[in-house]
């Protein structure tokens, strides 16, 4: 059974996720004050990892942002043919993605990898991709994706959710509708409740 939810239903996953090989660089603890992106203490992708990434030559693939940036000339035609998408980690900068594509809507899919449930950056990334950059195609969350994030992910512009292996996507579906009338405007419903309803005292 597929663990993918698309829109409001279980769907077959036609995409192959391309992963980076494990980093050989020993993890160093960041000092934590130098520059902004280092504040979060995440590893950056190494050249060896990019070079060592194996992309299947046929079929639909979602490649890491760093690999796409390094090999965009070869990947662009697949992208324009609708058979290559990009995924990024929650600590990667959207600006990198935007400045390396001609038109974000040439991408059939963007996927955001969330390593830990508690990492709420994914919600801001989804919101920005939809509202700031006008992305209209499939926006997928994958990684530590569990049913209790779904309502928030949906409201932040995601429409595709790959539930973590070992958890029931069937049961998770119910949580897309945990609340019927949210207070604030967000991606899926831009108007706040006070503009949608006539709330009289």
């Amino acid at each position, binding site marked *: 059974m597929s663990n993918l939810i698309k829109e409001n239903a279980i769907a077959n996953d036609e995409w192959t996720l391309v992963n980076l090989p494990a980093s050989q660089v020993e993890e160093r603890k960041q000092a934590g004050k130098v520059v902004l992106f280092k504040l979060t203490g995440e590893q950056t992708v190494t050249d060896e990892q990019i070079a060592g990434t194996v992309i299947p030559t046929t079929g639909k693939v979602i490649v890491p942002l760093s690999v796409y940036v390094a090999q965009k000339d070869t990947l662009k035609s697949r992208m324009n043919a609708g058979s290559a998408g990009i995924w990024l980690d929650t600590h990667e900068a959207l600006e990198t993605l935007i400045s390396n594509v001609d038109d974000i809507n040439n991408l059939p899919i963007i996927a955001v990898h969330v390593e830990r449930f508690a990492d709420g950056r994914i*919600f801001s990334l989804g919101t920005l991709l939809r509202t700031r950059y006008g992305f209209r195609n499939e926006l997928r969350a994958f990684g530590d994706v569990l049913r209790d994030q779904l*309502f928030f992910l949906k409201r932040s512009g995601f429409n595709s959710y790959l539930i973590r292996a070992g958890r029931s996507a069937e049961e998770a579906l119910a949580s897309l509708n945990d609340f019927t009338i949210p207070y604030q405007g967000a991606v899926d419903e831009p108007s706040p409740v006070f503009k949608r309803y006539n709330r009289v005292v």
Partner: protein
Amino acid sequence: MYQYDEIDQKIVDERVAQYRDQVRRYLAGELSEDEFRPLRLQNGLYIQRQAPMLRIAVPYGMLSSRQLHKLGDIAAKYDRSYGHFSTRQNLQLNWPKLEDTPDILAELATVEMHAIQTSGNCIRNITTDQFAGVAPDEIVDPRAMAEIIRQWSTFHPEFALLPRKFKIAVSGTKDDRAVVQMHDIGMEFYIDTNQQLAIKVWVGGGLGRTPILGAVIREHLEWQHALTYCEAIVRVYNLHGRRDNAYKARIKILVKALGIEEFKRQVETEWAHLKDAPNTITEAELARVAKHFEAMPYETKPAQDASFDAAIASNPAFAAWAKRSLHAHKIAGYRAVTLSLKPHGTAPGDASSEQMHLVADLAEQYSFGELRVSHEQNLILADVKLSDLFAVWQKARAHGLATPNIGLLTDIICCPGGDFCSLANAKSIPIAVAIQQQFDNLDYLHDIGDIELNISGCMNACGHHHVGHIGILGVDKDGSEWYQVSIGGKQGNDASLGSVIGPSFSAEEMPSVVQKLIDVYLKERTPEELFIDTARRLGVAPFKAHVYLDKSLAKEGVAV
């Protein structure tokens, strides 16, 4: 106060259903401990040393009689017949059973209450001045905006899982009682030169391990933009705040790392996109919510009341209480009343079920059926007629709610500490109780005058020790409990953080340490000085010298 319509009610009802299912999945083993943690926290449920603790939201400290009766019932039915009012103006139950928590929330929902976002890494309860709406020095009643911000922040999808907790306070007075500088975002409402409602926005304040006063990020913001501007701030924080180290994850660390100018630049860049977005507040919405906070149907009264004056003249106990517990009111003939939850010898902020029912009845009978919780952990009846005060006092006194110590040394702000909290380094309640016993003489307390003593059981600073005129912090030294003492902290417009006086003390030493600090003050003060003034004028040195005079004490003390 604000009353739910069907939309508000549906949201809390759906939350109960969602949470009930989360608890069911956890108990059935479908959710691991780690997965359940962020879910239960977002609903105010901690797993403590002894039992779970459930924190119930009291939005900006406002309660109705009906709600307080319900809280009293819940404490009796599901707990040990008492609750603890916290420095966030919330109510904590210390002994509920995990299995019962969905039912507790269902009962709360029947009186328009909940535990949404009372803990966890999300936007917490919005707090404000306990005298909002009645204070004579109030420029703007901030409660309508507090309610609008509450609704906006409730299940805000983009900010559901922030790097760390996020606290917003609003104020509308000259004399800031909401400590806006001590919050992740502080909003000070005022009327600008065009006679329009405007906001001065502070960011990056907070206590905890790294206490920092907030910085002004915007001097002038039109009220319509309150939500979109908050979105810009929280978005920058959500994306760039540290997530690798819980102690460095608050927004204050990001603001400090970037500098307020750079942080402001990023926020303004973000806001340029968000300004005038749909979440911009409309006149109609402000008017709708403000209707709930319209003035009470006050009677026209003279400024003086003969029966009150007579009672003051003839009854010294009543006069002593009135002196400490009554606060000026913008309507002639009315007073706001603080009911002390700090009787000497019990945990500060605790109220029994019986006391909750009594206060609910007093509010019903004498104060339009409403009351407030203060961040000093007392209860407030905001609208009492002068002619009713004697009756209120008699009833409150019969139930241990009229200790005339408001604002005095024994009106201690104190976190639950090591008796309940699993994060604690040391117990805090027994220290408060020991100090109350040491100073169990009301004439002496009045002579010492206004002073704030705050105790936290660890650096998380829930007891706001940094801003206590005297601050006490529980520290752990090789597994035993020690207490670090600071003086010179202050809340309010001229807020400051206290300075540590030296090596820490054992629990037994604490009452005498406080006594020595007071001795120095009484000796050195000028006639018009309060403790904080003397402490600021003289600095730490003379206090330190006296406290550590006994050399053996200094040697025993441990530097931490």
